[in-house]
């Protein structure tokens, strides 16, 4: 890792973002708490019948994950935009799309990965069987990075706006539909003891697609937002 190299810049940026996040641990917990709380609201709202919970469980957990991702997205570029370091990234000699990827990876490690860890707990709360829990974790592992990657485009487009939050959800949520459908369906299929490879393959394809295209779109959006 030479200081001026691209991989060096990538790792430095990743480390910087992780350190910044760990300095404010309370903020790290918030999306996670939100995820758990939203999921816990559903049994209170629709009744605690175990069969019903089992039927709606996959969808409920995934919608909660979607909202948690959306809520945490605003922070990806916000503080860098406010203190001007975002402009420095754009001025650097490295391709912005790679730097964006580092930031998105950091964001996912901070907000996406914890969701995987508490997901089994929620699966128990919603009465999901064991196989479905495994599939739930797999779909979250494949799906939440896609949420962060697609969301980054939306955040990059709205970062300069005063009321970016509401618009962000309008921009990003429709694009989340395929992830939601495939992931929630995979968990439902697993709960019915049917093979889920097709769903998992499709989710992986979505991840590859988002991984290759969204950093480019995010970089272009950042350039426009800061122009």
């Amino acid at each position: 890792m030479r200081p001026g190299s691209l991989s060096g810049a990538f790792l430095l940026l990743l480390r910087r973002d992780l350190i910044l996040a760990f300095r404010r641990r309370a903020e790290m917990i918030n999306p996670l708490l939100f995820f758990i709380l939203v999921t816990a609201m559903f049994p209170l709202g629709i009744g605690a019948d175990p069969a019903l919970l089992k039927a709606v469980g996959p969808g409920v957990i995934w919608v909660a994950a979607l909202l948690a991702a959306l809520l945490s997205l605003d922070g990806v570029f916000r503080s860098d935009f406010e203190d001007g370091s975002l402009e420095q990234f754009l001025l650097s000699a490295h391709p912005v799309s790679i730097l964006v990827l580092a930031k998105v990876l950091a964001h996912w490690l901070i907000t996406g990965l914890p969701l995987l860890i508490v997901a089994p707990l929620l699966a128990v709360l919603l009465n999901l069987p064991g196989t479905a829990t495994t599939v739930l974790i797999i779909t979250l592992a494949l799906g939440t990075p896609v949420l962060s990657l697609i969301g980054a485009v939306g955040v990059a487009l709205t970062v300069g706006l005063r009321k970016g939050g509401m618009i962000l959800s309008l921009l990003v949520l429709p694009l989340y539909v395929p992830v939601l459908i495939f992931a929630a369906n995979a968990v439902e299929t697993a709960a019915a003891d049917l093979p889920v490879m097709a769903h998992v393959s499709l989710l992986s394809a979505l991840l590859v697609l988002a991984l290759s295209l969204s950093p480019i779109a995010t970089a272009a959006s950042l350039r426009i937002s800061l122009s």
Partner: protein
Amino acid sequence: MITRYFHQLASPPYFYRIAGRFIPWLAVAFALFALAGLYTGLVLAPADYQQGDSYRIMFIHVPAAWMSLFVYMVMAGAGAMGLIWRMKLAEVVAISSAPIGASFTFLALITGSIWGKPMWGTWWVWDARLTSELILLFLYLGVIALHNAIDDKRTAARATAILALVGVVNIPIIHYSVEWWNTLHQGPTVTKFDKPSIDVRMLIPLLLMAVAFKLYYATVVLMRSRCEILERERNTQWVKELVES
């Protein structure tokens, strides 16, 4: 030669004049096609053996649904042109298309809902095509909201162009994901060009209406673009002369 023509067309005053000359002709053509389509569709076409007369809403519903996707493609294509070649005119066309496309999408949803009540027995089903049409409407609304939120017109145009392009990549994915998720909708009956499974007396009004909708879109997008150009160029000499004359 072609590039020169391109540059000339892309100059706002020239486009403003040319568009103004085209609009009446396009509007008349739209009226003729729409009248012909409505007459053949509502009067000449036979009733459906199963759906009776209520299928006739198809002559609005299907062209509107076609247009909803077509306008999005035009918007994204024009947006890409604006991003790549920095053509102001392409930006203007892209952003003028957004509300029209949203209206077509809304129309397709409403007519589909009205058609669905007697056929499926309910105003709304979470059917694949209805759902992807609804998501398309959300995509349009997102584009419009983003454009309204950014004050600087040129930044807004470029930001919405990127959003429209991201949407274009996503539309097929959304379409197929929703398709596999749930479908109740009748299959395509016109796209099979070798032997359409639709009676030719119903096909003709449908195609007439499709052409009429295209012409309507062309008319309205030119009108909106002219308006948008005037607003953008309000500080230039030619607009001042235009207003004073």
